[in-house]
């Protein structure tokens, strides 16, 4: 009979102190995004104009057919939220990961080689911090139009400096480790040293930073969608759903309210998960 080895029991033990509510929310998010066509009762883009502006099911004129009500074209709010989860999850995965890849490469190079590489990187990240993100997003939308790809590129372009700075700081420490010195004396190339010896020491920080940045990425994407310069209509995104409902705020408040709750819960769940991960993996990143 096979017994579970130390790895399995350690993994289970780690899960014991998992924050339950955030984990549930994130789990629901992933399930909603992946199985959207199966979960959503209606198509997110096609509305039944006979059922416009229906209130949520628990209110007087609501109907059990539309749990969270419908919008002004008759699209089911709940379905739009479920499908909107796809966009948010996509952004949550791609943007911080892209930022991490670019930022780690740049930060590690700057920290390891020092000198001009370091100076150049620091100036460049300083510059990125000084540029107003929303204006650039609007500019890009006006000149090139808006698309999912552009949104991801834009968010990643403004999201990589925090990675670069943190990785650079840690690389500066790691490159003075004995094992790094030994590797260099033994003749290892710089690339090999960075990849095989320094990178493993960075992974904890990178993972934590990725999780912490997800919330910011989701918020940024929702702001862009709200302003109309994000992922273009008629794609169902949470931000644009909130924007859609603004005109009907006094009469059909549910159109704006529920997608916003979805954004808020998701970002909060990711923030909590990130804090939990950080406390476990790399408490030095603590700022509170």
């Amino acid at each position, binding site marked *: 009979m096979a017994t579970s080895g130390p790895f399995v029991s350690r993994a289970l033990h780690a899960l014991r102190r998992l924050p339950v509510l955030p984990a549930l929310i994130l789990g629901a998010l992933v399930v909603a995004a992946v199985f959207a066509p199966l979960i959503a009762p209606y198509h997110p883009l096609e509305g039944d104009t006979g059922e416009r502006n229906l209130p949520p099911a628990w209110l007087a004129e609501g109907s059990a057919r539309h749990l969270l009500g419908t919008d002004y074209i008759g699209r089911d709010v709940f379905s739009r939220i479920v499908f909107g989860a796809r966009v948010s999850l996509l952004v949550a995965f791609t943007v911080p990961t892209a930022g991490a890849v670019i930022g780690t490469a740049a930060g590690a190079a700057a920290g390891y080689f020092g000198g001009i590489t370091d100076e150049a990187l620091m100036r460049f990240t300083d510059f990125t911090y000084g540029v107003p993100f929303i204006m650039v997003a609007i500019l890009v939308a006006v000149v090139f139009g808006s698309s999912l790809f552009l949104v991801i590129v834009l968010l990643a372009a403004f999201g990589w400096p925090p990675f670069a700075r943190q990785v650079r700081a840690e690389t500066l420490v790691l490159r003075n480790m004995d094992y790094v010195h030994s590797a260099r004396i033994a003749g290892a190339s710089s690339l090999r040293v960075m990849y095989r010896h320094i990178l493993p020491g960075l992974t904890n920080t990178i993972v934590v930073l990725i999780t912490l940045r997800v919330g910011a990425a989701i918020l940024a994407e929702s702001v862009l969608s709200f302003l109309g310069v994000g992922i273009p209509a008629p794609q169902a995104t949470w931000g644009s759903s909130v924007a859609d409902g603004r005109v009907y705020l006094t009469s059909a408040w549910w159109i704006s*309210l529920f997608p916003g709750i979805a954004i*808020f819960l998701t970002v909060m769940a990711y923030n909590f998960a990130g804090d939990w991960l950080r406390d476990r993996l790399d408490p030095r990143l603590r700022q509170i």
Partner: protein
Amino acid sequence: MSRFVVRRLAYAVLVMLGVSLLVFGMSRSAGDPRNLYLNEYSSPSSEDWKIMGEELGLDKPVVVQYALWVGRALKGDMGRSLSQAKNPLTVITERFGATAQLAGVSFFITVVVGVPLGVLSAVQRGTILDYLARGFAIFGQAVPPFWLGIVLVLIFAVNLGWLPTSRRGDWTNLVLPAVTLAWPACAGMVRITRSAMLDVMDAPFVAMARAKGVGRSGVIWKHAFRNALIPPLTYATILIANFIIGAVVVETVFAWPGIGRLAAEGAFNNDFPLVAALSIFFAFAFVTSSFVADIAYGLLDPRVRVS
């Protein structure tokens, strides 16, 4: 100190240069630049088309075009906004006051509410007040700013009727937009002040003050607080820049007639001259406030000047 100032000045110039290159570069990389200066209704004759080409200097090398564009911009000529039919700079200067007012009030709220709350939260650690303050902070940092505004309007304007829903008027119109803009910043301020206070309260000199017999509030405010001020102060100095950005969303939600809403309108109308001018202006505001912030920080903390 003067070297520090020069360095920050150089940084400011660098950012402005970079932004101008970014804006110009974009205008020249999406097909014929003349299209950006036309709205959907105008169809210029081939004569006008050629004249536009000459004005933009399209027959000359790109570097010369850039120089032409910068030269005009420095003289205040930012073309003609497509939706406003005026020089964008004129519109911007008209509307800037409204945004400045909003940002100013929000800054005041952030500091006046955030700092004491952070201090109290640290001092009364583990109590209900602490949890409430931290809940307030967590909420503020996770909530989408546009949705916060909408929810506040729903509660206070639509349902309770205490405050107006939008536009600028008397002080009642200021409340909801300022609170919406300030809340996330306030949340950050509470967190930073709290953690700074917690760090300081563990310091030996605080134990010394207590041992000396200084009263509790004396220990907190005269000894601990003063030395915990640097992180909150640093944070406060970057707040103005963040408010300028946040104003784009908040002004849109509340129909506040400032430059943030102007930016959203420019986006909606595909108004390149306006958006280009706004980008330069925003960058300028950003850079100016960062510069002032850095100088203030340098004056407060001598260690920064020599780094």
